[in-house]
């Protein structure tokens, strides 16, 4: 009970460090950029895996939540607020370091929102929107929830595509790095590549551990109970509507978090992030990892997104993920890693027998 999660974490940490060292040895450290991006996308996938596997909610709106995070950050950190500097609130925000002066790509001074302020705004906006979408949508069940989130995603995509504030089809570029003092910064500079790789790893691992704690707790049990038998869960004293909404919002917030981070990392965001195909891709990856397997979803998602970002799938990119979803749904609805996981568990159960007996009747 105590050992198993530690083994999972240690294995993943070793794999991530090994990936960096191998790429360095092969003189292909530039690949870390795509790996870092894949890790940020994996945060969306594990958040989605959480609601799909443990709460039974299939959302096709996670691309939109990612985009809401990314675009909020991109707009606020690139929009020139200097015209409001004369106003009292503009001055106040500048004094509070919510607005900061920086130089844009052409070397002229602009007044933008600080990354942390943009982050807070992005999270708050996502919270509000996820509640507004989730509250009515979660009264629907099964496919209807999926359809509602798909509709929401399409609307967000169209708004982003049509609005000059979000740069229409071009998206937004020139998003500044997010610096934490002089110690670290989320930025796409090639000098900071290795550092950023480890920052992404750290954040993804943290999310993974927190979610894992969550699903194995009172809240996680309540969600699985709702998923299994909603009426009985309600009759056992669980406020089912509230829990479903909270899980949905938490998952949406993770998607937005990934959007914020990746936008700082790549220095921009474009409308394809909000596209329906992106949402389908997240669902396919969560399913491919095994929907009740957060680790599996993380690993599968990192590997496949990395290959996709390296251009392995060429012009068949979207088709690969579509085909993957079809294959998973028809061949292995519980995820291809399930048989493998059972094998591993049996194997590890043997030499962890001591730790495991605490698991059952103590």
């Amino acid at each position: 009970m105590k050992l198993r999660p530690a083994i999972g974490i240690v294995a993943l940490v070793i794999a991530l460090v090994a990936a960096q060292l191998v790429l360095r040895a092969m003189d292909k450290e530039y690949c870390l950029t795509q790996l870092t991006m894949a890790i940020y996308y994996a945060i969306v996938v594990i958040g989605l895996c959480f609601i799909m596997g443990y709460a039974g909610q299939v959302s096709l709106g996670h691309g939109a939540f990612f985009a809401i995070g990314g675009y909020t950050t991109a707009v606020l950190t690139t929009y020139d607020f200097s015209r409001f500097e004369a106003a009292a609130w503009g001055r106040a925000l500048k004094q509070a370091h919510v607005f900061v002066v920086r130089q844009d790509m052409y070397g002229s001074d602009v007044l933008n929102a600080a990354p942390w302020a943009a982050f807070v705004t992005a999270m708050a906006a996502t919270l509000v929107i996820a509640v507004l979408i989730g509250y009515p949508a979660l009264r629907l069940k099964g496919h209807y929830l999926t359809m509602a989130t798909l509709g929401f995603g399409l609307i967000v995509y169209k708004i982003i595509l049509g609005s000059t504030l979000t740069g229409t089809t071009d998206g937004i570029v020139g998003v500044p790095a997010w610096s934490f003092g002089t110690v670290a910064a989320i930025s796409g500079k090639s000098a900071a590549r290795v550092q950023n790789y480890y920052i992404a790893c750290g954040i993804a691992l943290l999310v993974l551990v927190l979610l894992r704690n969550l699903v194995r707790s009172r809240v996680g049990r309540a969600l699985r109970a709702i998923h299994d038998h909603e009426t009985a869960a309600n009759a056992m004293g669980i406020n089912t509507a509230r829990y479903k909404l909270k899980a949905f919002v938490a998952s949406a917030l993770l998607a937005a978090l990934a959007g914020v981070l990746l936008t700082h990392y790549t220095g921009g965001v474009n409308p394809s992030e909000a596209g329906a195909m992106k949402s389908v891709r997240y669902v396919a990856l969560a399913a491919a990892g095994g929907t009740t397997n957060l680790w599996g979803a993380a690993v599968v998602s990192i590997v496949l997104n990395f290959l996709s970002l390296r251009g392995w799938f060429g012009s068949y990119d979207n088709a690969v993920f579509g085909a993957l979803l079809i294959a998973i749904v028809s061949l292995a609805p519980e995820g291809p890693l399930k048989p493998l996981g059972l094998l591993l568990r049996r194997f590890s159960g043997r030499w962890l027998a001591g730790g495991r007996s605490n698991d059952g009747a103590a």
Partner: protein
Amino acid sequence: MALLEVDTVRRSFGGVVAVDRVSFRVDQGQIKAIIGPNGAGKTSLFNIISGLLKPESGRVRFKGQDIGGRKPYQIARAGLARTFQNPSLFLQISVLENVMVGQHCRTRSEFAGCCLKTPGQRREERAMRDSALARIDYVGLADRAAAPAGALAFGQRRMVELARALATEPDLLLLDEPASGLNMSETDELGQLIEKIRDSGVTVLLVEHDMSLVMNISDEILVLDNGATIAEGSPLAIQNDPNVIAVYLGSDFKHASASQKS
């Protein structure tokens, strides 16, 4: 003192009146049974009391408070737990976890605490696990605690459901046909368990078809037919009630009472 008061409750589905102005009360410390032929409205009445159905008219008072129209989870929190006619366990999770879900409304760790595994959350989790294991032991399934609920036999599922309902720490326990699907020895054990539960201070209201069980353990019996009350009283009074004999018990009842005497 009346723990539960049902006052002229009515509910219909389309043109069919499932529960027709039924009134009764359950006193603290009783075992009370509701009997009646299939379609008499027993389960509908249970669903109204536990909040799954809204009454069209009439009132349900629990511990003096009107609970008619409240949500099931609010009623469970108020101290009224139930089991279902078809055991409704959470089949994907273990027996232990099923019973721990029952403790949900008596515990408080939320999203943040659970993510961060705060000391308070760990303490609560340990306490939940211990008391859930104790309740599983109470219904005689200690060796099955780690099994997935879906792997249990039917009779065992009923017992887990009972343990789960007890985990909500109820003052009143509603059992919907707890003996259906059980064999005779399991039914005997169930009868003893229900009496043990009553003796521990939990009032019991049950719907049951097994007449020997009902007659053996009940303090009072309510008889429904076509949604309406046709008799109410002690097991002895019910056995001798001409209405009941005519409408419902018929010759079966004589077998039951004969086997009870022997």
